[in-house]
């Protein structure tokens, strides 16, 4: 599947598969979770075989997402350490969003925005997993105050996470030539030089 042998390998097959497991479970969780979030979304339960099935399936999907995200976390956490350059990048993010990346500092494999996304997702995942267990009545029966707190945290972290994923997906659509990295793992050298010059140098030695 390599169109140009000089394309740069950004993701290994197992990394891509891992990302897709997280992605699919997230989409199913968001659809079933929104159904219980507000009545306007309740018809989404029909996608899962009805409202009771949606209630039964949702937490098991949650376990799948939590475990697969944990694997993803260990794969990528070391690449997401914040550096002073990332902070500079974040300071100038307004220009980037405005469509001008000329003043942006050189970035490694991930830019400051991607790193913030990574850590924000990690925190939300942790909150979702813990609060989700608190309100999973099929298996657990925690103290009522903890369950109430769990319900609020679960709803709030879920809403934040859906917002973050919108940004994550849009960023991939906006930056042309990105999505192929998720499908088959490679990007063009031009893409890497433009968006992640530090990583480009590291990969090509130029």
């Amino acid at each position, binding site marked *: 599947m390599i169109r140009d042998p000089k394309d740069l390998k950004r993701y290994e097959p197992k990394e891509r598969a891992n990302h897709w497991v997280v992605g699919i479970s997230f989409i199913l969780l968001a659809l079933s979770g929104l159904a219980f979030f507000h009545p*306007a979304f309740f018809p989404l339960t029909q996608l899962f075989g009805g409202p009771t099935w949606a209630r039964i399936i949702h937490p098991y999907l949650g376990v799948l997402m939590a475990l697969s995200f944990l694997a993803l976390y260990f794969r990528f956490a070391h690449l997401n350490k914040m550096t002073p350059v990332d902070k500079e990048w974040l300071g100038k993010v307004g220009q980037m969003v405005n469509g001008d990346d000329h003043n942006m500092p050189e970035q490694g494999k991930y830019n400051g925005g991607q790193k913030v996304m990574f850590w924000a997702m990690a925190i939300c995942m942790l909150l979702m997993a813990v609060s989700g267990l608190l309100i999973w009545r099929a298996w657990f029966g925690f103290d*009522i105050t903890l*369950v*109430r707190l769990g319900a609020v945290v679960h709803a709030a972290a879920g*809403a934040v996470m859906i917002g973050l994923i*919108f*940004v994550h997906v849009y960023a991939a659509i906006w930056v042309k030539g990105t999505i192929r990295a998720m499908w088959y793992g490679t990007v*063009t050298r031009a893409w890497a030089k433009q968006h992640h010059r530090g990583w480009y140098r590291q990969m090509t030695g130029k």
Partner: protein
Amino acid sequence: MALQSLDIKQRSATTTPSPSERQTVEVAKLIDTTRCIGCKACQVACMEWNDIRDEIGSVNGTYNNPTDLTSSSWTVMRFYEKENSSPFDLEWLIRKDGCMHCADPGCLKACPAPGAIVQYANGIVDFHQENCIGCGYCITGCPFNVPRISKKDSKAYKCTLCSDRVAVGMEPACVKTCPTGAIMFGSKEQMTEQAEHRIGELKGRGHGKAGLYDPAGVGGTHVMYVLKDADDPTQIGLPASPTISALVSVWKGFAKPLATLAMAGVALGSLFHYVTKGPNEVSKEIEDEIEKEDAQ
């Protein structure tokens, strides 16, 4: 169960008005704890009328039997032994526990399933198990720890205040059977008057702290108690000032519509960003540089 289909005041997870053309009198059950002898006839009548049988449990050394509300025991007598300061002064307090039928029901507020919980114009809060999804949010919302999820079918159950009997002009089964007249039923107004009369009597007999339990924190209830010591309802297991937990109000109140708008805002914002700013493509300049490198 939905005999009262035209007089629904509130319906769970429903944002438009429910059928409410018919107006009915607000009802209430008044439980006079000072006249209760703990015979459990109400428990039996409840089982009989609703035709439900709990599993046979074990005796835990007290009169509490069953020891707690369950999905098939919608009312239980709770016995409390209160030792007073003077020696040999032991009080045996008894309360019939069950759904309080709050005017502002926390269960209904928390429920995500449309129509699984309804409140009729007469004030009765009823669960419609055919719409229940078994999430247990009603338990999370209830300030009185009343709903129970069935181990058999994972649906939530509780006292219906015999909504089926009340709909056809009868009193609840527990009221009908109570041998001492400790459980009374009528309009909320009548029951409040009745309670005042009884409280006056009790005060006249030296029970200065007698009073009515109709907690304002949940908008009042459609099951009220006459208490001998109304200053401390906790001694018979009632919360002193029950309200829907602030956590539940935030969770099910203003936050969700706002969060929904915010999520929609992010999605639409992204779309319009693309439309107004255009895609972030690799510049021609860099593509040319790479091409030049390859040509060398």
